[in-house]
């Protein structure tokens, strides 16, 4: 077993109809009903991994793997007349990310914290086609359990560097006793192709703790850097 696997519950959507409660496992010892402390429509439906008829700590399992199947990088250089173009791409395939920023952003469990816009799409009697559970004003909220709801595919392909250069024609510079002038512009972190919903799929380990690899707890994203330059050779 690789180190730092994600450990939590598997889920099966939300409870959206009364029939789903028939023979459903009891979740965290809670009865059925609308008040906090009971399981109701709009709550997360957890999977009874050990088939004992109740959802509790024993139903947690491995829900994700932060390690990629492989990582890669390649550089392409193009040259046409006086132009040169270099493209460096790198990426990672097959790794999962535990998106705790998303967990906090859609929590709907307190009145004193800002939420993502999509948190407004919470479950209600008029809004049943959603994956965001009903709001419960309590941090002791079973819908917040670490689960596969927060695990995302972290594969990405990033254009890490793109440089476009132009060499001035030697005829126009030779009288200045300069042998070569190249003007170029480059962009770091130009674009990332990914299905990951957070800021940046390149996470690393939270607090440099290898047990918390690819745990996105609000990591500051990689900046995009533009630079312009001139190479002059005498």
């Amino acid at each position, binding site marked *: 077993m690789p180190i730092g696997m994600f450990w939590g519950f598997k889920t099966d959507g939300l409870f959206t109809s009364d029939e789903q409660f028939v023979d459903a496992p009891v979740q*965290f010892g809670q009865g059925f009903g609308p008040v906090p*402390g009971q399981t109701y429509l709009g709550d997360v439906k957890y999977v009874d991994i050990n088939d004992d008829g109740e959802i509790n*700590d*024993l139903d947690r399992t491995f829900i994700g793997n932060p390690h990629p199947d492989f990582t890669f990088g390649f550089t392409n250089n193009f040259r046409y007349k006086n132009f040169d173009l270099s493209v460096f791409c790198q990426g990672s395939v097959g790794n999962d990310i535990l998106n705790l920023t998303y967990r906090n952003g859609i929590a709907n469990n307190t009145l004193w914290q800002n939420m993502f816009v999509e948190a407004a799409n919470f479950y209600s009697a008029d809004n049943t086609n959603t994956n965001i559970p009903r709001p419960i*004003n309590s*941090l002791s909220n079973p819908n*917040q359990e670490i689960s596969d709801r927060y695990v995302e595919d972290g594969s990405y392909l990033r254009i890490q560097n793109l440089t476009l250069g132009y060499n001035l024609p030697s005829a126009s510079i030779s009288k200045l006793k300069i042998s070569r002038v190249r003007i170029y512009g480059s962009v770091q972190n130009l674009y990332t192709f990914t299905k990951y919903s957070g800021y940046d799929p390149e996470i690393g380990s939270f607090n440099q703790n290898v047990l918390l690899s690819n745990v996105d707890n609000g990591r500051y994203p990689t900046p995009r850097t533009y630079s312009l330059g001139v190479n002059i050779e005498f």
Partner: protein
Amino acid sequence: MNSIYSLKSKFFSALLLSALLLSSCNDDFTNRPPEDSIALESFYATNEQVAKATNAMYNRTWFYFHNKFFFAIAEVGSGNMMSYSPDVNAMRNFSITGSDGELLVGWQSLWANVAQANSIINYLEARVGSGVSPEVLQNTVGEAYFMRATAYFYLVRLWGAVPIIENNVDYVNDPLINTNRVEDVYTLIERDYLTAIEKLYDRVRSGNYAENAKVTKGSAKSMLAKVYLYQKKYAEARAMAEDVISSGEFKLLGGAQLPNKSFADLFTFPNNNNEESIFALQWKNVGVYGNASNCNTQFGISNGTVSTSNASYGGVFGPSQDILSLYTTEDLRRRETIMFPGAVYPNVLAKIGSDFGPLVVPPADQIGGQNAGAAIKKYCIGIVNGNATGSADPWAMMENNTYIMRYAELLLIHAEAILAGGGSTSDASALSSFNAVRTRAGLSPATSITFNDIFVERRKELAFEGDYWFDLGRIPRAQAIAIMSAQNRGDRVTAQSFTPEESDFILPYPTNDVAKNPKLTEPPVPYTFN
């Protein structure tokens, strides 16, 4: 070839030389005591240093237990307090889960006490210097036994079966530990308090309050009386309580022996460690988070205009609607426990707009907080006001003590131990203890008492001090459920009631700990004491 050989031989002679030089270093050379920090080997050289070993166990180790968890469980859970604040409201409707953040830190805090006590119990004796007197060493170890027993007394009442750990070092290599049976945990608690009684100083609480901070023989006896009572060992509880009463170590503020004081004086900063205090957490403003009490801010009033705290928020906990009708108006404890609209507290300084002045409680609809229409007075001492309140740390936390036990409770334990599970009693010494508490509160003495009289009196006397939850836990479950489901746990406008289940009286183990030690969920095993 020659040159290579000579190079080689030079290299080897250099190696030989350095090996000789290194081996000549002795332990004194490499193993030097640090000059910029305190070393364990040399620290416990004087009586004063040994006595300091337990200082942190009067505040820092208890901080997260006391900060929110204690009140979120024992007061919100029992229906004395209410809160809508999402970090502390789970027990209002019995919805707490193992992932609750306060549940985790409260649990950790109690285990920190156990661990801290264990290191003193197991290792202090071997570390002290020759200049330390045996009495000081024994007293310090006695304090550690007292703290371990007290932490376990909370653990067993909150979670039931928990692991018994007498030396944390034993489990370093094998941290998967079974829980032990509740009766074994109680055995440990009794043994620890008995050892504490043996080792702690015997003294009488004087008017010099600064000397009363630490626990004594009488503190351990009082706690043990309570532990006996919880197990219905009435004869032992009575003997222990009578031992404390006859020792004269503690007195009621405003009782027969201290008529110039009153119930109100119990909850002011200058009266920290008064004659009634049996064991109190000693909060300190040291400028570092986690050493002082947030009660002044979390209780009291903060409505945007009137504030009793130096913080920018307040009133996180409010009184429940149920407790508002607990006291009769002649009960002196009423205004010292709950701030009702219109009440005036000349000694509590409040911020009123941009001015400061004595607290006048606003009308019910303007108290704000949890919209209880009233606020919690106990432990609320107002904004910083010189020697009357002491200072506040950068988080507006203050230095007023929190009682774990005070003499009034010991008297009620005494009365209950004499009743001994019977229907009623008019035993003279039971009445004497019971009525001492009642008359101090300005009420007429009773002539006969039942269990329910004591039960209600305990709630009135100890409201907001973190005890009612445990009282509800030691009466028959059906009775407790009936009491709690009848409570109005809503606010001034919206009445709400919730019915607990039997399982709600025992807290879930923190999810994090179950993941690390899955044996927590296995049935408890017997513990072998050596």
